[in-house]
């Protein structure tokens, strides 16, 4: 249990990278990039977890209950929403590439120069 989350993070990163490397479609690559990004959320939350801790909201529980780390949750939270917008921007690049070159295959796109 000590290292299981970190092993899963490593697995997800390698799986996502494998998808990007062996992909023949820009949109498939973008989705694999999303998967790689999601591994960072798991890593952040895994680092900040305290065994036996509760969520850091003290609306109805006494003030000094043992709670998990709030800082990494704040980072992961903004991360998730911003990732969606950046993915949309990447998709717009893919759409323009398709419009100009007619194909979404990265192997063929690499041959166009200028």
């Amino acid at each position, binding site marked *: *249990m*000590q*290292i*299981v*989350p*970190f*092993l899963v*993070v*490593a697995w997800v*990163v*390698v799986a996502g*990278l*494998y998808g990007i*490397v*062996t992909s023949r479609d820009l949109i498939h690559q973008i989705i694999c990039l999303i998967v790689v990004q999601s591994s960072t959320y798991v890593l952040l939350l*895994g*680092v*900040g*977890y*305290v*065994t036996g801790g509760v*969520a*850091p*909201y*003290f*609306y109805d529980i006494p*003030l*000094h209950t043992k*709670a*998990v*780390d*709030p*800082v*990494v*949750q*704040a*980072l992961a*939270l*903004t*991360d*998730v*929403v*911003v990732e*969606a*917008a*950046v993915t*949309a*921007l990447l*998709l*717009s*690049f893919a*759409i*323009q590439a398709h*419009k100009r070159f007619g194909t979404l295959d990265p192997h063929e796109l690499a041959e166009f120069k200028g």
Partner: protein
Amino acid sequence: MTSRQRLWFFAVAAAGLVACYLWAFAGLPGFGHYPGPYGQVILNEAVKQTNATGVVSAVNFEYRGFDTVGEEFILFTAAAGMSVVLRKLRGERERQPLDETDSAAAARPTQTGSAIRIPALLLVGPTALIGWWLASHAQANPSGGFQGGVILASAFILIYLSGEFLTFRRLSPVALLDAVEAVGAAGFAVIGLAAVAQGFPYLYNYLPLGQTPGAVSSSGTIALISFFVGLEVAAAFVLIVGELLGQSLLRQRSA
């Protein structure tokens, strides 16, 4: 290089990456034994200092407010970048949704089934309300500007999903969305600058902190910032979806 060579190259690189990862994780204190003092200090002090019972939002908009400004501007730039990248190229013309020939109109379904329309239309109001509520209650609950903004945007998207495409276009004019997004982003920056104008550091919490921890009017600038962030995120997402929808209306003219 061929695909197989590429795959072997990747396998070697991935093995190196995993080795480095495992070495790094071996240096971490195991899962569940978080040692860092920063988290503990914030947990002890946050409610007293900011009167906000939602410590994560207090961290987001107060203790690490500067990082959140940066993230929000990433969102803003992504939406603006999409508008620039997806501009109408020379030779493209926007197709009116109503001037289809008969065969084309018969070829694609124009009416979504009632099983989708009715629940989607019924859910628009509650979704907008929930999004609004989440964006304004950051200091007490697991909510905040980011989540509330996305849910508010999805209320608009529900209108599109229920088949009322023209209503969606009419309800989300680009000029208005641009203005709302700018107000949201600028609001955050201006709140910080207003602190500077009073002689405090940027984004210092200068509004009255209120009596009860976790009430709507407590926690000073945190609630206000969360509201503006909600506006900005909602407008950005509706803009993004609107841009992509506009793309599907564009028709390529030959040469």
